[in-house]
């Protein structure tokens, strides 16, 4: 077990190095850099830009150096003293900007995963046991709707409902205006919970629908396994049989979700958070990409990747803990 963990952790390092290189390269792929975008914007507003000043900025940010050198400078800063570089656009350290938003993003993600589980588990269980019943069909239909409706559309619909049906005075954001800059207290937490459900539902529906289908299919497979019949033949009561035997095996995809739902959530989160104007890393990433603010964009993508890789590790370890076949299959 310990060797397994050690090997998995060791394998994470090359993965992360590769991710950071790829990230950095992709950000640099579009023609131009932050300064050209900056100059274009200024020119579009009719302002004159002094080429000498641009050259000075270029030299200061090291933009004329070859890409590998830029990459090494950036990554060395991160590894040596947690310096993620400076955001050109905001003229603030990237680390500072991210630490403003990352905790909320993590809370948001975790809440969404838990929401997905809570909804998907009973529905998937029920529609597997009562296969082809009315309830199964209803759950299936809702599930497919959830898969098919684009997230942002759902977000807009819920915002409209929040305004017109429930009469909320503020939609979007994670806090009401009065709490936005307040210190943390019970009221602020409650306020957060009151706002969090909309993005949670929006982002969770697709994952929930997928998970219901997976759980249903897995459980249907397991229910036909000989060990279920064998346990029934031993006189095991149905409910206990179901929860103790096939359910345990069908649980695996739930745990695996941590690994595969995170990237999906992160991708969806960018759009949903922009629509709902949430103070998470998503909208920040979008704007930084648009303005080619390379250190900010690179750092966010890198952090999100690290989270995903760690999430995958956690889910693998959980799986090994849950499933003896995996635990004993690894040396």
């Amino acid at each position, binding site marked *: 077990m310990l*060797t397994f963990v*050690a*090997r998995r952790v*060791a394998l994470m390092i090359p993965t992360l190095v590769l991710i950071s290189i790829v990230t950095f390269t992709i950000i640099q792929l579009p023609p131009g850099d932050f300064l050209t975008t900056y100059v274009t914007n200024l020119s579009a507003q009719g302002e004159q830009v002094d080429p000498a000043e641009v050259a000075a900025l270029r030299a200061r940010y090291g933009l004329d150096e070859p890409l590998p050198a830029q990459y090494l400078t950036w990554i060395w800063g991160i590894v040596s003293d947690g310096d993620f570089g400076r955001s050109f656009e905001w003229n603030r350290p990237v680390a500072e900007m991210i630490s403003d938003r990352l905790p909320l993003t993590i809370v948001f993600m975790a809440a969404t995963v838990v929401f997905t589980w809570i909804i998907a588990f009973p529905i998937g269980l029920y529609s597997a046991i009562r296969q082809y019943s009315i309830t199964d069909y209803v759950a299936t239909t809702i599930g497919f709707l959830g898969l098919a409706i684009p997230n942002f559309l759902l977000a807009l619909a819920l915002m409209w409902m929040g305004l017109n049906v429930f009469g909320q005075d503020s939609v979007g954001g994670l806090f009401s205006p009065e709490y936005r800059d307040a210190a943390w207290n019970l009221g602020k937490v409650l306020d957060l919970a009151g706002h969090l459900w909309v993005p949670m539902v929006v982002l969770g529906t697709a994952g929930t629908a997928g998970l219901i289908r997976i759980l249903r299919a897995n459980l249907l497979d397991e229910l*036909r*396994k*000989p*060990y279920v*019949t*064998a*346990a*029934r*033949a*031993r*006189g*095991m*009561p*149905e409910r206990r049989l179901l929860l*103790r*035997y096939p359910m*345990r*095996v069908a649980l695996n995809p739930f745990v695996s979700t941590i690994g595969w739902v995170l990237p999906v959530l992160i991708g969806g989160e960018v759009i949903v958070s922009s629509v709902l104007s949430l103070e998470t890393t998503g909208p920040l990433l979008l704007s930084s990409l648009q303005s080619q603010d390379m250190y900010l964009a690179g750092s966010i993508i890198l952090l999100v990747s690290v989270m995903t890789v760690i999430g995958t590790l956690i889910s693998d370890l959980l799986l090994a803990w849950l*499933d*003896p*076949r995996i635990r*004993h299959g690894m*040396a």
Partner: protein
Amino acid sequence: MSRSDVLLDVQGLKTHFGTDDGVVRAVDGVDLSLARGRTTCLVGESGCGKSITARSILQLVDPPGRITAGHVWWHGDPDAAEPADLAALDPRGERMRAMRGADISMIFQEPMAAISPMYTVGEQLVEAIQLHLPLSRRDATDKAVRLLGRVGIPRPEQRMHAYSFQLSGGMCQRVMIAMALACEPSLLIADEPTTALDVTTQARILDLLAELQADTGMAMLFITHDLGVVAEIADDVAVMYLGQVVEEGSVTDVFDHPRHPYTQALIASVPRLGSRGGRTSRLAAIEGIVPHPLLRPAGCSFHPRCHAPVGDACQELPPELHAVDGGPAARCHWYDDAVRPEGRTLPVIPVAPTIAVTPPAPVPREEAAPVLEVRDLTVHYPVKRGLLNRTVGHVRAVDGVSLTIAPGETLGLVGESGCGKTTLGRAVVRALAPTSGQIRYHDDKGTVDLAALPDSALRAYRGQVRMIFQDPFSALNPRMTLLQLLAEPFRNPALRRDRIGSETEQRVADMLVRVGLRPEYMRRYPHAFSGGQRQRVNIARALITRPRLVVADEAVSALDVSVRAQILNLLADLRDEYDLTYLFISHDLSVVEHLCDRVAVMYLGRIVETTTTDRLFDTPRHPYTEALLSAVPVADPHRRGDRAAQLPDELPDPAAPPPGCAFHTRCPHVQAERCGTEVPQLRGIAPDHDVACHHAEALELRGVRNPISSPS
């Protein structure tokens, strides 16, 4: 059987499955009585409704299956004045649940799959005990350990913490038996409990069941398609065909005087150990296959396959169960005085018709150069462990094997699963690359070493050395028609032609006819065919390139008895017609005896004995061969109990074989001298008889025919 002896009485049981295509009458009026303390075997080919009958007793049939009529009277409750009708109970109700596992237990065909992999076997055993007995967890655990010891599991305290996937199939079946017997049931239903196991393991499990039955006095309903097992274990026999019992009687009655044509044909189609096949005999295969239950023939459902129909009545009137001479009963018009023509009786099945013309005997081996010479062949698989995935050892699947096959000869390769026989076969056809050694193939153009050839040069030989695979279902690509499957070897990949020329098509058609399939079928896909038909397609695919050597890897193991007889006959016919040489890999010694000229016995990657079929079966000189031979159940109830000592324990780990003779850990004849220290080499002890045993000359071993074979 008197009333008080009856434990379970099934009357007119019908279990039907409502499907989109119609109602499948899987069980259609079964009458069956089980006596206290006796073993009743339910036999028949697959698809006859044996398992569904057994599951109906405990109401374990999965939807859409449903008991639609009939009664299952349970006489097992001593306090009840009236028998209880199990068929009338609610399948999910408390009374049914309380019966299961407590009064009636069940064990299944695939023991690995019947135990949940998520909990240790100990946890599941304790749970099974506590379901029905009011024991504390500690007492239940003690009982569980005792039970594991009782069913012959060594070191039961440690095995309590093992998971099913850490145990062998035989161990898992023992665990299942322990669970089934935990609450001392009056009836044990065993649904093909040994079919998935090795022949040596099967023999030990059968012994265990017989022993436990003698101890506890429980009754047993034993379902099997293997008549050898029936002869070994049954007191009473019920033969099923298409959802009905067609014959029942005591085991000696049924084997000595089978009444129903189906029973007669079943018994005739089994190659019996000790009744030497030789090249002249054929098996009396039943014609055709079990029809799909939706297409049940009118009248007597067996009449299309019957060797001796009485007359029109067979096609029109469903026969009743008639008692014959007071004892056994058969569902056949031959025993209906109203139907049978005056003065005529059922003609006896022509048992094992022999071919009139003697086919050419295999060319004596001294004259012809061998087709294949395998020299010191090894196939090792690395075992990887640890942080850096380093190779820490090797599984020696094949460990220095040498053998020769003469042209026209059939060489049988036998051994328990895990002994490396399949790996050897695959290495011979070069489906995998050997680690070292030579595979020398001889033809008119000279000799090549297939083991040393690169893949590109192998192509020339791919058509000459072919393979027939075990599983007829997964060996054929479901997305290709028979024509595409069979024409594949002729397609030139360089031309990328998807069209198949008319010449090739003619060849495919001829080949299909030759293996007994209609040429019209060539545009159909494999799913349209039964297992036996698919195995014919497999054979056709192997033979269409006109090979010289065919490696048949358990080619008949997955087939039903009657279909197996058909395929064995076909293999024998094709061998004579095309002058084929076979390497016939099988764990079934009776089949090997029937088909093969010579036999090589493998144990843990090495050949331990090789000689002619006659010598091997009559005078085995290696203790392992003796053990294998004695483990085969013989389809003759009069020879029951006539066997040598059983092999203890399971196969050792091939990654760490025991020092000295690899077999010495299980050998009943092991001696202090040399066995544990010195590896025995394969050496000739008689003309054409090689054995790898230090004490081959000194041992007294039992063959199949003569009780004791000692060195002459």
